[in-house]
């Protein structure tokens, strides 16, 4: 026998269920008076630096139907590529930008929408710059472990072409599943859980 590593196992995930809003966005769920506002509802204020953008989209199941009970969270760098996080060692991020957003999909239409700014570029582990991107995390009834993916910008062709993470995708035909489409002042990013257009999900 050898010594034990004394490691614990991560708590097993369970689905967020159909009522995730009660816990994470109670005001959206019409449970008012407990918290003054839902966390993650606003990422920017009038002093936030950077190009204002709106990101909207749907989370779509294998029968081409948008989920009306999902919760989407995003995490991104500020306009200069810094994260508003204690683990950010390269400098101080814009104090007027949280970097984190949370939005339930609309109970009727299934749409999610974030008012944010376009993120700057962040270095990969080897120092090469990654293309501007936003990390997505999706939970819902029927999703047993939260799904992680990234949204890139279709109009960042040069940066996307040298992005070390996008380069890892073997089936190039699937790369566009991670590219948000420019749509006026905003971007549209639909997430497909299954099928021909299945989004590339990440094991991070």
């Amino acid at each position, binding site marked *: 026998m050898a010594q034990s590593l004394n490691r614990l196992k991560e708590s097993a995930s369970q689905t967020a269920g159909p009522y995730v809003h009660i816990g994470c966005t109670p005001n959206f769920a019409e449970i008012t008076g407990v918290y003054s506002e839902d966390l993650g509802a606003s990422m920017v204020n009038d002093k936030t630096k950077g190009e204002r953008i709106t990101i909207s989209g749907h989370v779509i199941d294998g029968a081409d139907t948008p989920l009306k009970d999902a919760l989407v969270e995003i995490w991104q760098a500020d306009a200069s590529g810094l994260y508003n996080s204690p683990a950010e060692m390269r400098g101080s991020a814009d104090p007027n930008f949280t970097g984190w957003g949370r939005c339930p999909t609309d109970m009727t239409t299934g749409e999610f929408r974030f008012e944010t700014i376009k993120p700057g570029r962040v270095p990969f582990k080897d120092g090469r710059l990654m293309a501007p991107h936003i990390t997505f995390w999706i939970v819902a009834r029927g999703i047993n*472990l939260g799904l992680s993916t990234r949204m890139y910008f279709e109009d960042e062709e040069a940066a996307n072409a040298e992005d070390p993470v996008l380069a890892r995708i073997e089936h190039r035909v699937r790369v566009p599943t991670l590219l948000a489409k420019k749509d006026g002042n905003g971007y549209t990013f639909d997430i497909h859980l*299954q099928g021909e257009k299945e989004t590339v999900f990440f094991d991070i």
Partner: protein
Amino acid sequence: MSGATLSNRKPETGAFYQRDLDWHPPAYTPQYKTSVLRSPQKALLSLDNTLSEITGPVFGHNILGELDNDLIHNFAKAGESAIGPRIIVHGHVLDERGRGVDGVLLEFWQANAGGRYRHRKEGYMAPLDPNFGGCGRTITDENGYYCLRTIQPGPYPWPNRANDWRPAHIHFSAFGHGFAQRLITQMYFEGDPLIWKCPIVDTIPDREAIEGLTAVLDMEATIPMDARAYKFDIVLRGRRSTLFENRREGN
């Protein structure tokens, strides 16, 4: 939320341990019917963490209201309280190295004592409790400790197979130090026979992992003549040390 750290500990910047996807429920679990059309079918793209996964927001204790972790009172009219068996749930948020994780935002939600959620889409015949909202939150202290007070939720039937019942449970969302640590899970109660009949619990392949989600009655933490206590620890992913890693400037 602010950029300030919550403790004197130096922030850690190592990548998180690889997630054991055989320990977690797989995406496709036909006994839980909703998963069938909501489960990705292609292989995941595995990625050693970059800054985008290692970093994460901080939630300061200043966001918390006095009653945020007291579900018996946080929705109740003044002088009234929620109906049901009074319990305390407490424990530590640890990481896979066994270290307490400070500053973790925990959000929890549950049905009332009759098994009814306060939600527009909920249709179970059990009545709402006018004094129970069903949501709460807290942030772990410097040792990773948390506690909350609530009423024990009831089991309830749900549309899956013709006669499926959820065991009594409390949902937990945990926000650790890095976005890759994000986790939602459910807490069950020791001794509940419905645990072993539930298709959602059954999505977890390993019995030991299910037991790890089952809170244990903690008589020593019980308040006599007031509330029983259950102990429930939550484990988040551990992270590597960066001591001997070669890192280029900028990372």
